[in-house]
């Protein structure tokens, strides 16, 4: 599709136009942290090379979402979804949304809440220039500077952004703006991967049984921060309550790091200790999702590494698993 030039001095004009018709979610400074938030003024948007503290997954899959109200019949909530632009999403998070989209919309059943949010969202990507501490998207085979997993992708080229329009939703946002076409389609910046893609390349039972999960997970506190901050983690629980006499059901993020995640009513727990839970986290990301949907559910965003209070490092863990496998 087309490439157009967006001069930086016209960005505010664009944003203000979009804000009339859309909820605009973009990186915004909240205290020290750069986070995705709904922005009301163009000047609140921060498009830079920093990586946001959290991914924007909560705008498609909210942390807490009321999904139904019980009455004479049962009413699904959120029938009206706001048209939303999520702006400034880096390659790691765009690729993560591909994983989440596969889980929620592929197969026999579709998660209609996620699908509705997705259909009403326009994703605008933004190229990354430098890897941040903890980042390893390059090792995961991604190009930090470019992704097509969005509706429009922006590349910063000094006084202007090169905008690659990838879908009709993306095209619609630039309608009537009289932007110049890029003189020649800009060369896609490359991000050469020298070391080979970091994967767990092995049979499920072998990795499951031959890895010393107890020693690997020893430091882990089981706090679950890594799962909440992960752009691909999508596990949830239903929670029922009564609001002003009306029974309602919420869908809330859950975490495989918690003992109660898998406990049966009988008390039996298939993942009773930390080593089983940590094994699930790694194997789900690197093996199970890949086997079921074709994607490794880790994009190397590095958030779990940067946020872990105990210094757990998923990149080192995966490397260690592969080294052990080679040596065994």
């Amino acid at each position, binding site marked *: 599709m087309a490439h157009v030039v967006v001069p930086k001095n016209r960005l505010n004009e664009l944003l203000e136009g979009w804000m009339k018709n859309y909820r605009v979610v973009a990186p915004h400074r909240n205290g020290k942290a750069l986070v995705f938030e709904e922005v009301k003024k163009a000047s609140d948007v921060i498009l830079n090379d920093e990586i946001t503290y959290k991914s924007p997954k909560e705008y498609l899959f909210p942390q807490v979402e009321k999904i139904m109200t019980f009455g004479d019949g*049962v009413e699904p909530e959120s029938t009206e979804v706001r048209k939303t632009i999520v702006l400034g999403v880096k390659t790691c998070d765009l690729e993560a949304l591909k994983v989440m989209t596969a889980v929620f919309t592929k197969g*026999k059943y579709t*998660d209609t*809440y996620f699908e509705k949010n997705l259909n009403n969202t326009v994703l605008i990507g933004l190229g990354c220039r430098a890897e941040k501490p903890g980042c390893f998207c390059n090792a995961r085979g991604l190009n930090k500077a470019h992704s097509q997993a969005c509706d429009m992708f922006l590349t910063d080229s000094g006084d202007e952004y090169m905008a690659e329009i990838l879908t009709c939703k993306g095209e619609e946002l630039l309608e009537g703006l009289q932007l110049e076409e890029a003189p020649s389609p800009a060369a896609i910046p490359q991000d050469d991967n020298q070391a080979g893609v970091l994967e767990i390349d092995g049979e499920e*039972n072998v990795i499951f049984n031959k890895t010393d999960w107890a020693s690997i997970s020893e430091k882990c506190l089981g706090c679950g921060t890594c799962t909440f901050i992960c752009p691909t983690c999508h596990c*949830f629980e239903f929670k*029922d309550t009564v609001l002003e006499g009306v029974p309602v059901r919420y869908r809330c993020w859950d975490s495989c790091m918690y003992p109660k995640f898998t406990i*049966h009513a009988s008390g039996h727990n*298939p993942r009773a200790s930390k080593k089983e839970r940590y094994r*699930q986290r790694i194997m789900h990301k690197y093996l199970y999702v890949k086997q079921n949907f074709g994607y490794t559910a880790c994009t190397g965003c590095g958030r779990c590494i940067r946020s872990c209070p105990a210094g757990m490092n998923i990149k080192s863990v995966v490397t260690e698993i592969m080294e052990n496998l080679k040596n065994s």
Partner: protein
Amino acid sequence: MNNPYLPQKAEIMEVIQETTSDLDIKTYRVKLLDGGTISFMPGQFIELSIPGVGEAPFGFASSPLDTGYIELSIKRVGLVTEALHSLKAGSKIWLRGPFGNTFPVKEMEGSNILIIAGGLGLAPLRPLILYMFDERNRCKYGDVQMLLAARSTGDFIYRREFEAWERIMDTNIIKTIDRPEEGWNGKVGFPHILVGEIEIDIPNTYAVLCGPPIMIKSVSSRLLEMGIPKFKILTTLEMRMTCGVGKCGKCNIGHQYVCIDGPVFSMAQLAEMPAEY
């Protein structure tokens, strides 16, 4: 696309007290309020909601050929079941389903069937038993032998039906309890021991088992020793299945989700899966 999380309102038609022991198991006969039917096949499960309390998965326990209602046999053990056990005929609950795979009833045709159930493990096998016992289907299956185990006589579920089942042609039921009781003329002992006493036509038998994980493990290894092939030993697994549709991420064993790839698995399949159930 249909929203797979939305339940339908249903009414409890009848509550049957199954156990007379300290294990409180009741069977609930329910129907959809809009007059619709829930068509399922043996092995599948449903999600039952009590508004304001929560939702939990239960295996169907009635015949798939009875279209006017479904039955669910439920032990009082957690939040949802505690609330359910306080409900009476006429109370409203909510249902969504059916979910999951089924027992391979077509593949099993022509074979003898050995049913081994421990306690409430008989509930998810009852749809299969009643399906095979239906007069339209009985001739498609060979001998049906059952080894039914319970902790005590008061723990047997569906015991009011055992006599009628035994009267069906080529059917044999062996009952066993954990400890001797006065007046008991059945067996005493665990099913993995007793199964050795049953005459089984090994090359022509499908074994279907359900019970506590320890029973499934001990009985299946005994059956394998006896020479029943792995793919002909079937079981149905229980997991914390929040969504029932392969999204919530709670019920997987390796890459397989018990809610959509199961709950019915053969020992051939389980042998290939990580031991995590």
